[in-house]
């Protein structure tokens, strides 16, 4: 694994800017990998041994992905929408897993560490670089029993929604009213179809 400064510079470039979240994310990722015994997670063979669950879609999430090499499309990065500045690092080979939570008290600690910096953004950014891990994070050893349908690798499970005909991968289908449905058909979704452009009609247009 590269050194902290190199990783931070890379994370800032990948994310688009340098911010306290990048510092927190890089340090969290370095600590998480160390705890589960991985020293070069973004290269083979360790790239296949790591899964990271992130619990927020904020700046730190990008830094975590940059340092560890985990990717949504590789199924090694899992997004759990808890709105909590936390991540869990799982070593698939050993089963070791640690959940690391960014402390809220670190903000106050930053004021103590860098009283000469008045701008809170810069104060946090600089303080988080040097702050003790114990002040920056709460760490807990955990067990994560990852479902077979969430594992990386080829698609093993496919179902077809009986209502709209779309293929649902990885056991995300729902049985409702004795029908196997995709989640949008079963529970509704974040989008509303515009009249005249439903999936079925679109398929007809292209046939």
């Amino acid at each position, binding site marked *: 694994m590269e050194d902290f400064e190199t990783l931070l510079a890379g994370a800032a470039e990948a994310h688009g800017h340098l911010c306290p979240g990048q510092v927190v994310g890089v340090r969290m990722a370095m600590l998480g990998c160390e705890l589960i015994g991985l020293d070069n997670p973004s290269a083979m063979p360790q790239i296949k041994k790591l899964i990271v669950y992130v619990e927020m879609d904020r700046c730190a999430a990008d830094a975590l992905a940059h340092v560890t090499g985990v990717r949504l499309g590789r199924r090694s990065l899992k997004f759990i929408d808890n709105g909590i500045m936390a991540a869990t690092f799982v070593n698939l*080979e050993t089963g070791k897993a640690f959940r690391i939570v960014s402390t809220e008290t670190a903000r106050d600690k930053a004021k103590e560490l860098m009283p000469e910096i008045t701008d809170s953004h810069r104060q946090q950014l600089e303080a988080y670089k040097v702050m003790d891990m114990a002040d920056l994070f709460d760490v807990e050893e955990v067990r994560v029993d990852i*479902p*077979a349908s969430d594992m990386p690798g080829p698609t093993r499970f496919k179902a077809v929604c009986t209502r709209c005909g779309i293929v649902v991968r990885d056991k995300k289908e729902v*049985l409702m009213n004795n029908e196997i449905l995709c989640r949008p058909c079963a529970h509704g979704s974040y989008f509303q179809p515009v009249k005249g452009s439903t999936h079925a009609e679109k398929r007809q247009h292209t046939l």
Partner: protein
Amino acid sequence: MRKNGSTPFKTVPVEEAVGMTLAHDMTEIIPGKSKGPAFKRGHKVTSGDLCRLMRMGKNNLYILDLDETQVHEDEAVFELASALAGPGVEFSADPKEGKLELRASYPGLYKVDVEALTQFNMFQDVMCGSIHTNTNVQRNQSLAATRAIPLVIERRHLDEATALAKAAYPILSVAAYKPLKIRLAIIGNEVYNGLIQDRFQDIVETKVRALGTDVLETCILPDDREIISGKIKEYLEKDTDLIITTGGMSVDPDDVTRESIEASGFDQVHYSSAVLPGAMFLLGYTRDTAIMGLPACGLYHKTTIFDLILPRLMAGERPGKRDLASLCHGGLCMNCTPCRFPECPFGKTA
């Protein structure tokens, strides 16, 4: 190369083990740094592994001597679980001692095709044990477990079992609850006239809420045919999935709820169930709406027929006369203190 009795293990010098399958986890200890499995059971030894194995002090290995007609239990159980698990049922990627636990991936009504599962268990060298069908389950709840019985199973036995499971798909599934539009009518002169305080509303609302939905509207009515019928018709005209009435279900001359429901335009009305508490239960349907008439036993008993039928309606089922009758086996509540339902035989009809 040595065979170990009749087991599928062989002892093989490490340099001859390339391409063979390890019979057990191999632990590596790096003093002061780490201790953990360097190679998992089932790992196929590669030439790149030889140096590491020798550094670990391994000059001979137990390897599995499998041919193409044999399948290791960890691989077999994955195929069994994949074939058995329908919608709402998931399982770990990591078998423990050859076994996989199947769990609910969302809350709902657990459904087991009992006949197909029995047929599955008739095949040689496989098993799957399950909790009862029609159980209300929570996310992540353990539902069943499966395994191949021997350490190594014949491919043809495995294929026979998985073929049946795939043909009967889904043998195990969880039916998600659909939030229903529910309206409630509390019936009884004693409540209507304020002689006693109603307690049914709270009981019904609590049980409905536990399944993820709410009662939209509640009214209190006297034991009067026209008023009850009129209110039920009003509920039917509104967008209602389920009407629940409480009280007036027994044989007293003042009890008119049943006939009021029957006069309100329901196509099918089933009165009485093979369940105690809950014998004087009514279940009826129109094309779009179901109605449940709850007898007064629900005020006294913590668990009744209501707890058995509500989840099934919420899961989109329409239990009929035979379903109500088939509850007979397991239909007697044992009135345990404290009540352990659903971890008890009540309502567990196979």
